[in-house]
């Protein structure tokens, strides 16, 4: 059985947490999930197959670059109350 601490590490890496009860539910689910993974792992001949990342090959035409008008730095700074290092400076919103 997978350890709850490991599940907590995976969750925290993704920047969220769960309650202890939720981790226990997940731990139980992982029992089945790991058996599902075994089905994949035990399939004959799998080592010789190229992983598939897309349903089929497509021709991709890159989009032409469009020239669009944008503000010059000077114009962008015209209304700025404060600038620093060629950037707009905004009030600190998080204490």
């Amino acid at each position: 059985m997978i350890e709850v601490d490991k599940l907590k590490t995976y969750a925290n890496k993704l920047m969220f947490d769960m309650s202890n009860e939720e981790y226990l539910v997940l731990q139980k689910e992982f029992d089945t999930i790991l058996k599902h993974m075994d089905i994949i792992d035990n399939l004959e001949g799998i080592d010789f197959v190229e992983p598939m990342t897309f349903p089929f090959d497509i021709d991709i035409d890159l989009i032409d670059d469009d020239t669009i008008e944008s503000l010059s730095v000077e114009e962008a700074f015209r209304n700025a109350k404060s600038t620093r290092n060629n950037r707009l400076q905004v009030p600190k919103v998080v204490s």
Partner: protein
Amino acid sequence: MSMLETHITYDEAVSRAKKYQDRYNSFVTIIDDYQNENSGILKGIPYALKDNLSTKGIITTASSNMLKDYIPSFDATVYEKLKASGAMLVGKTVLDELAMGGTGTTGHTGIVKNPWDEKRMIGGSSSGSASAVALGIVPFAIGSDTGDSIRKPASYAGVVGFKPTYGRVSRYGLFAFASSLDHVGCLTRNVLDSAIVIDTIKGHDKHDLTSLLDDDKSYRDLIKNDINGKKGFYLKEIIESIDSDEILDCFNKNLKSLKDLGVDISEVSIDKNLLRAIYPAYITISSAEATSNNSNLTGLLFGPREEQPSFDKIMMHQRTIGFSNLIKRRFVLGSYVLQKENQEKLFLNAQRIRRMVVNKINELFKQYDFYILPATSSIAPLFDDEIDRLSDKYLIAENHLVIGNFGGYPSITIPNGFVNKMPIGINITSRQKEDEVALSIAYHLEQTMNYKDQIAGDERV
């Protein structure tokens, strides 16, 4: 008769949507003052849009607390095309949170109930779209399908659900779940209406580089082509994994009807272990892609934000309280399979299974034009029903629709009977980019049955 000839008015649709909302919960947002002066093929026809498609100025939540107040600044291409066609948006429909799930029970505004029996689920994730069509609120609704999210709820709701070839309809403006598997499609009450909807929303889109080049076909015209001489197959191992005699009876009746129409149907056998591996491969790939796609939901850019001492703490707090338990569990699975030590054994092997399945089906498609199978192995489950997730019934019979997403095949579910007063569906899948084949087989099969244009709820017909 198609929706172009007769349809409910926009005002009637809004009124019906409001009447049913408390009971079935089809909508996140009902729009009662929608304006659209465009004169296109769908002028004046009311419709519903799944709430994971971006609508400028209209709240779009993906049924998640993380996006409960999000108002997009741009339109999804599918919505733009529907606006240009003159169609009238009645509302944004409830989904399983972020389209991850198949029960219709995880949306932030509550569960969606099945209009044929309120004690049963309608499936998902296009739950509200299926419900709005089944209740006769709208003649069509737009959904998205990553594993079976249009075609399974269609079966449970007694309506038609069509997922065209991958890329046939632009994904621009669709909130990505698993980009390599995500499709946009529709739910309707007859096959002709599905052809009309897809004719309207398909086409190449410069905003979606994976969208297909225009095929310049009118599916509406092509579906009526004679199907005499077409060749189809079904997979023996999937049929053997279904334990409902009634579902198998309806399936066999469909096979006979197709044979009477001159279609040749064969039984084909493939490795059962490969079929058993489809769902595990799907859940691995989709969870991994979802983990990455939803990393933008930080609590900083979108949705509610509470002050915390640091950016890290804002993210940790918002993602902890913002996602439902199911989503968090799926994300942990995604994180697990993407860990360096697991990637080769789990994630890459799942992608290898995907190729093995698609290679096998493509090989069969050299010989056959389509395959046909019961869409589900049972009627819509009760909310507290449990199924053994290691059984063949679950792994093989309940989840084979995923094949359509692995290979990007056009795939359609149509109603084909009732079991215990609940609708069931039959699924037809054809070669990539031959959407008209799946549609035409479905269209002709539909004519042999009496389940076209059926409505649940108070207006039941």
